[in-house]
């Protein structure tokens, strides 16, 4: 992905990066994935989870949160990303319970609560699938600078949705910290999330 996306973010914040890099170099190890500490990306939202409960980002304060925007009619990138997140959480062992994975659908028309309730926990029972109405979905995606665009359906009515495929990581205090793009690896995600868990 997201080299470009990441780079753009980084370029926007060169002074900030220098500042935080100096502090980071002084006291902590570096992240392997794109550090977005200090950016204003994301923020709180109100969406419904796959059990029907209304959820906000702030509900997960105290946990490291990883958010992936996708849709279930996506056979390549989406299940692979969720499987990587499942591996990541598994490799964190007991500390995996301190991480909350959120899958926000960009296709609420097809990804109903019933579909999400089957799909999302199949990767890991701790994962939550979130959905909103089209307007709310668009608002949340925009806050995370996630672009998505449903394509016109083909003759059989099937359609795909273009979407940004990055994973956003929010620390336990609700601050955006990392963007994990196409170059992510499970070991890189484990490494970086461990650093965040250490505080």
């Amino acid at each position, binding site marked *: *992905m*997201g*080299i*470009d*996306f990441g780079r753009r973010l980084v370029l926007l914040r060169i002074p900030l990066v220098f500042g935080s890099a100096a502090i980071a170099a002084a006291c902590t190890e570096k992240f392997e994935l794109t550090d977005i500490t200090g950016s204003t990306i994301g923020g709180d939202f109100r969406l419904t989870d796959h059990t029907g409960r209304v959820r906000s980002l702030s509900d997960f304060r105290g946990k490291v949160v990883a958010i992936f925007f996708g849709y*279930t*009619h*996506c*056979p*390549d*990138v989406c*299940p*692979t990303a969720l*499987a*990587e997140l*499942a*591996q990541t959480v598994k490799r964190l062992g007991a500390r995996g319970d301190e991480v909350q994975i959120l899958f926000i659908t960009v296709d609420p028309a097809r990804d109903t609560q*019933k*579909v*999400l*309730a*089957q*799909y*999302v926990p*199949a*990767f890991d029972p701790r994962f939550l699938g979130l959905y909103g109405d089209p307007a709310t979905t668009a608002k949340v995606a925009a806050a995370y600078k996630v*672009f998505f665009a449903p*394509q016109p359906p*083909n003759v*059989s009515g*099937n359609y*795909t949705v*273009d*979407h*940004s*495929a*990055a994973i956003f990581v929010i620390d336990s205090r609700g601050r955006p910290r990392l963007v994990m*793009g*196409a170059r*992510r*690896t*499970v070991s890189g995600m484990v490494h970086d999330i461990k650093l965040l868990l250490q505080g």
Partner: protein
Amino acid sequence: MRTAYPIRFKRRRTAVASWAVCLLLLFAGRVNAGADNAVQVSDAWVRETVPGQSVGAAYMRIHSTQRVELVRVHSGAARSAEIHQMSMENGLMKMRELKSVGIDAGREVALEPGGIHVMLVDMKRPLRPGEEVTLKLNFRRPDGSAFAMTVRAPVKSLAAEAAHGH
């Protein structure tokens, strides 16, 4: 005069080459009338799917000694199958349906994660590792004639893919 010989030689080679092509085409026409030996499919596999996931992806390598096009795919595991090209541009994932995939003579085309896949649409049930999916591949030759071949694609575990790949 120094160049005369090479030019003549080149022309003769061109003539021989075009005769060879004609003969090959004739021969190819005869071979094509029967079962097709030109196409070889290897490493076919399907990604494991989870409950609630109604679409799946199949991958394979297709080698052909003659120019062919993969035009349609059918699978008993899904209501329909479509050929899709996935691309990543600046972190944006796009999938577009392809009418066909062309394979030039002597070439191999890989259907692989992050590139082209066969999308299994409206799957009847989740695909579990260890199972096999049958795919019927329909090809078309440049002369418009068609042939089909059936391949069996084992279901690959998502967890194993996430752990190894990427």
